[in-house]
């Protein structure tokens, strides 16, 4: 469990101070994954660095498992750091040490004896699927493998909390998948609480339970990903859902329908059966004009643009709304204006 309250941090800049964090409050329940998203310069890294105890905030508190860490110094500070695993932004492996040597570093800091250290390192490399790379140096590993070593290192001293700052920003989609799979295992198998900074919505879709949107040093939105998805006016809904492209549908075709709307469907049952059932029950013609399907963690989520024809078109739409489909009406002439 991570609780951040009213965190404020400024940096001396040219002339006036740069306010990187402006009263940030955030809570990540134990055993969940929280994503921090937002534009570049929003303060995401500063937040992560404060929680990692690399940066001392001007004001506010940071509690991990209930203990306030802001005021710690010296030995207490070092002990607290050991309880928080950190995957820093960018390449952070010691290039003169093997993968195993890197993973061993926190154990050396903690004074773990060599035999126990070796056993633990083997365990961690197995967790991230790099047992056969134990003796490789960072320069012999791919970007994705290096990040997985960094995750293994962050977990070496068995922290209850893991922070990762843009762990996939330098990776292609495929290797991103391998790193995310590791983070997912960290939560599900070790029960670690994870805070992951990212600008990649695919990361949020794949592994985050919660998400916080940071802008100009403030949290402008925070909640469960699935809740934000159906919340009207949410800023990140659009970027979490599939694009509604209208490939192959001309404005004229759209004009044929009595009702045109965008529907968001959440969950296996809704995505699979709701639209055909609505058509069947109300005896209307219902066509999918655009959109697509994605997954949030294990939950299938769809956003479709639909057109409905028939006397009871409006009824069909309200029936969908009653079943927790999120409906946004598209004024019918938008297609015409755009064309």
């Amino acid at each position, binding site marked *: 469990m991570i609780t951040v309250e009213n965190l404020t941090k400024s940096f001396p800049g040219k002339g006036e101070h740069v306010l990187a964090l402006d009263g940030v409050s955030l809570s990540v329940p134990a055993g969940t994954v929280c994503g921090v998203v937002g534009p570049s310069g929003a303060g995401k890294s500063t937040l992560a660095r404060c929680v990692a105890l690399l940066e001392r905030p001007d004001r506010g508190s940071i509690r991990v498992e209930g203990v306030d860490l802001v005021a710690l110094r010296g030995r207490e500070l070092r002990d607290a750091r050991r309880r928080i695993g950190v995957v820093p932004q960018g390449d*952070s492996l010691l*290039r003169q040490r093997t993968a195993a040597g890197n993973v061993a570093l926190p154990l050396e800091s903690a004074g773990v004896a060599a035999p126990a250290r070796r056993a633990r390192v083997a365990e961690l490399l197995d967790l991230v699927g790099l047992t056969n790379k134990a003796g490789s*140096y960072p320069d012999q590993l791919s970007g994705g493998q290096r990040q997985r070593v960094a995750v293994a290192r962050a977990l070496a001293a068995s922290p209850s909390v893991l922070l990762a700052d843009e762990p996939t920003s330098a990776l292609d989609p495929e290797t991103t998948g391998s790193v995310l799979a590791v983070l997912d295992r960290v939560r599900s198998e070790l029960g670690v609480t994870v805070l992951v900074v990212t600008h990649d919505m695919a990361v949020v879709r794949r592994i985050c339970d919660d998400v916080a949107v940071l802008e100009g040093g403030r949290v402008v939105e925070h909640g469960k990903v699935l809740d934000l998805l159906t919340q009207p006016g949410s800023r990140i809904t659009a970027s979490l859902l599939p694009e509604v492209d209208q490939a192959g549908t001309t404005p004229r075709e759209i004009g044929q329908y009595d009702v045109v709307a965008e529907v968001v469907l959440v969950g296996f049952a809704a995505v699979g059966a709701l639209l055909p059932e609505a058509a069947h029950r109300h005896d209307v013609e219902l066509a999918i004009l655009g959109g697509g399907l994605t997954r949030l963690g294990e939950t299938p989520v769809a956003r479709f643009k639909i057109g409905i024809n028939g006397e009871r078109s409006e009824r069909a739409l309200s029936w969908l709304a009653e079943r927790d489909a999120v409906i946004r009406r598209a004024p019918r002439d938008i297609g015409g204006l755009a064309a």
Partner: protein
Amino acid sequence: MREPTPWDRVFDLVISATGDTVYMVGIATLLAALGGIPLGIVLHMTSPTGLSPRRITHRVLGAVVDVGRSLPFVVLLVVLSAFTRALVQTTIGPTAVIVPLTVGAVPFVARLVESALREVNVAVVEAAITTGASRLRLVRSVLLREAGPALVAAIGVTAVTLIGYSAMAGVIGGGGLGDLAIRHGYQRNDERILLASVLVLGGLAWLTQLTSDFIARTIDRRRSALRV
């Protein structure tokens, strides 16, 4: 015109002078490393981006080091003669030359070490900090190890520079190849000795550089994939 010195005599003289040069430079490099590396570490640690920023300490140490570095070696030879006499009971010969060589090289090594440590990636050091490592461990296991190849190169450059300085000591009768070249070769106009001692001096510098490059490359684990 004198008879030229016979080659076997030249050989003996050069061998003995080489021994003196290796002795002077070897000991001076060792002492300079022993003094310069800790000084370089402190310079880096106290710098604004270091692990224990101390502005005043950093400035003062930096000034002392730079003044030390700017003094010409010949001046050190003279200025330090009283100190040298107190330390080693003589002001001539190889042992006496070690003193100014070391004093001149310590600040040189310190700056080289400082810049080698500064090159260590900040993200790597921060990652190590988040593991709860103590400062001592950060220096030993992270900074010095990551900068290892650069530190070896720094010591190599220092040794090569000291070979040059040690030759200058010839003007005050310091012994070694420089002394041989100046007093036997140049002043007595003995071309064989001049040629041989200068060649050996250059060869020694070249060999030292080669060795330091080799060691630096051997301990460097970066880009090792290219050498597999």
